[in-house]
C-alpha cells in the first residue's frame, strides 16, 4: 500500500502557500478589481513647520485603494499604470499637492480629527511701529496674516522599479494642472523592506526621498509678496530647492485583517523654504503608533 503524494500536489501546496502569503501582504500587494478600505486607530501627530500652523493629531486614519488592470487609486493618487516588466511600471498620475496642507485648517487626508496649533509667541509678531526695513525683514510672519494658499492638482509621470532585494525605487515628475502655482515638482524615493525568518509577521521598511520643488511652487506657498503684506521690506521670493525625508515603518501582521503599525518620518525643508519668515521649524515630523484594520 502506498499513499505518497505526487509532485504536482507538492507544487500546489507551494503555490497556494505563496498566494496566501501574498494575499495577507496588503502592504505591498493589492487584489485586482477589489476596493480596499482600512482604518488605522492609534496615537500620532504630524507637525506643522509654519508659524501658527496647525499640527495634525493622528487618531483615526482612513485608507482607500483600488487596483484594476491599469487604473488605480491609492490614498489620493489616481493613476493609469503600464507594466513594462514585472519589476518596472510606468504610470500617468494625478494627485493633490501636499504643500497646501500646511496652510489648511484641516488636512484632507485626515479630516476625521480636530487640529491644534502651538501658541504663538506674541512678542515676535506684535509689530510696534515704526520698524526699520531690517526689523520688518526679520519679523516672523504668522500664517494667519498671509493670504490664502489654495490646493493645487498635480499631474505627471511616475516610474516604479522593484528589485529582487525588496527595494523600491520611485521617481515622479509632476506639474500643476490647476493653474494655482504653475510650477513643477519631482520626487525620487528609495524604500527597502526587511522581513525576518524568525519573526515572520514582522516587516520593517526604511525609506528616504528627495523632493524637488520649482521656484514657482516655492514662491506661491512660501514666498511673501504684496498679496500678503504691505511692507515692501518683508517680501520674500524663495528659489527652487529640495526637501529630504527619511522614514521608518514597522508592521506586525496578526492576521489578514489586523496589523500593528509604528511609523516615524522626518522631513528637512529645503533652505529656500526654511528661510521664509513664515517657517518656524526647518523640520517636520510625523509619527504614529496603532492598529490597522482591513475591511
Amino acid at each position: 500500500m502506498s499513499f505518497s503524494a505526487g509532485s504536482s500536489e507538492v507544487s500546489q501546496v507551494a503555490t497556494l502557500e505563496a498566494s496566501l502569503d501574498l494575499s495577507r501582504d496588503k502592504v505591498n500587494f493589492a487584489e485586482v478589481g477589489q476596493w480596499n478600505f482600512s482604518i488605522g486607530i492609534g496615537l500620532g501627530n504630524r507637525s506643522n513647520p509654519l508659524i501658527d500652523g496647525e499640527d495634525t493629531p493622528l487618531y483615526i486614519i482612513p485608507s482607500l485603494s483600488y487596483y484594476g488592470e491599469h487604473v488605480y487609486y491609492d490614498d489620493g493618487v489616481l493613476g493609469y499604470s503600464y507594466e513594462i516588466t514585472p519589476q518596472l511600471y510606468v504610470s500617468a498620475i494625478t494627485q493633490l499637492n501636499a504643500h497646501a496642507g500646511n496652510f489648511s485648517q484641516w488636512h484632507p487626508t485626515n479630516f476625521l480629527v480636530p487640529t491644534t496649533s502651538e501658541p504663538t509667541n506674541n512678542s515676535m509678531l506684535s509689530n510696534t511701529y515704526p520698524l526699520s526695513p531690517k526689523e520688518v525683514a526679520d519679523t516672523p510672519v504668522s500664517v494667519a496674516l498671509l493670504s490664502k494658499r489654495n490646493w493645487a492638482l498635480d499631474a505627471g509621470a511616475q516610474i516604479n522599479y522593484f528589485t529582487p532585494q525588496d527595494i523600491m525605487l520611485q521617481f515622479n515628475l509632476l506639474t500643476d494642472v490647476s493653474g494655482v502655482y504653475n510650477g513643477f515638482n519631482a520626487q525620487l524615493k528609495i524604500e527597502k523592506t526587511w522581513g525576518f525568518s524568525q519573526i515572520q509577521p514582522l516587516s520593517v521598511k526604511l525609506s528616504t526621498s528627495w523632493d524637488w520643488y520649482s521656484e514657482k511652487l516655492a514662491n506661491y506657498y512660501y514666498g511673501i509678496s504684496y498679496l500678503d503684506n504691505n511692507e515692501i521690506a518683508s517680501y520674500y521670493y524663495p528659489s527652487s530647492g529640495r526637501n529630504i525625508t527619511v522614514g521608518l515603518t514597522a508592521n506586525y501582521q496578526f492576521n489578514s485583517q489586523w496589523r500593528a503599525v509604528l511609523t516615524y518620518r522626518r522631513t528637512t525643508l529645503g533652505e529656500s523654504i526654511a528661510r521664509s519668515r513664515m517657517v518656524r521649524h526647518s523640520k517636520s515630523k510625523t509619527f504614529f503608533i496603532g492598529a490597522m484594520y482591513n475591511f
Partner: protein
Amino acid sequence: MSGNQIIKSFHYLSIFIGGLVMLILSHTTWAIERSALAISPSTCIVKKLGDACHKQLTIKWKLPAKGNYCLYKKDKKIKCWTNQQNISEPLLVNIKKTTTFSIKNEKKHIVVSTKVIVNGATSPRLRRRLRADWSVFK
C-alpha cells in the same frame, strides 16, 4: 583464465549484483510502505480562498506495528484507534486553509503525516501597489 571462465565470472557477478539491487529495492519499498497516511481526495476546491471546506473524505493509514494511535488536525486531537495497524474509513473535515493531519503514537510522537490542500476555484489575482504604504502622512 580462459575467455569462457571470464564470461562465466561476469555472469555470476551480474546475478549477484542483480540480486543485491532487487534486495535493496524490495527493502526500500517495504520501508516506504510500512508507514503511510493518505487522506483523499487530498485537495478540496472551495469557491474562493477563505471559504470553508466541509466535506467527507477517506482516511487510510498503515503502520509497521499494531498500537494505539490518534489522528491530529495540526495540534488538535480528532480521533483515536486502539490496537490497530491498518485503517480505511470516512473522515469528515471542516477546514478553511491547507491543513496538516498527522498520526501520533501513545508518546504523542508524530509517526506519519499528510496535508489536505484547500484551493480556491477563483484565486485572487494580485498586483503590486504603486504607492508607498502610509504615504497618507505626506
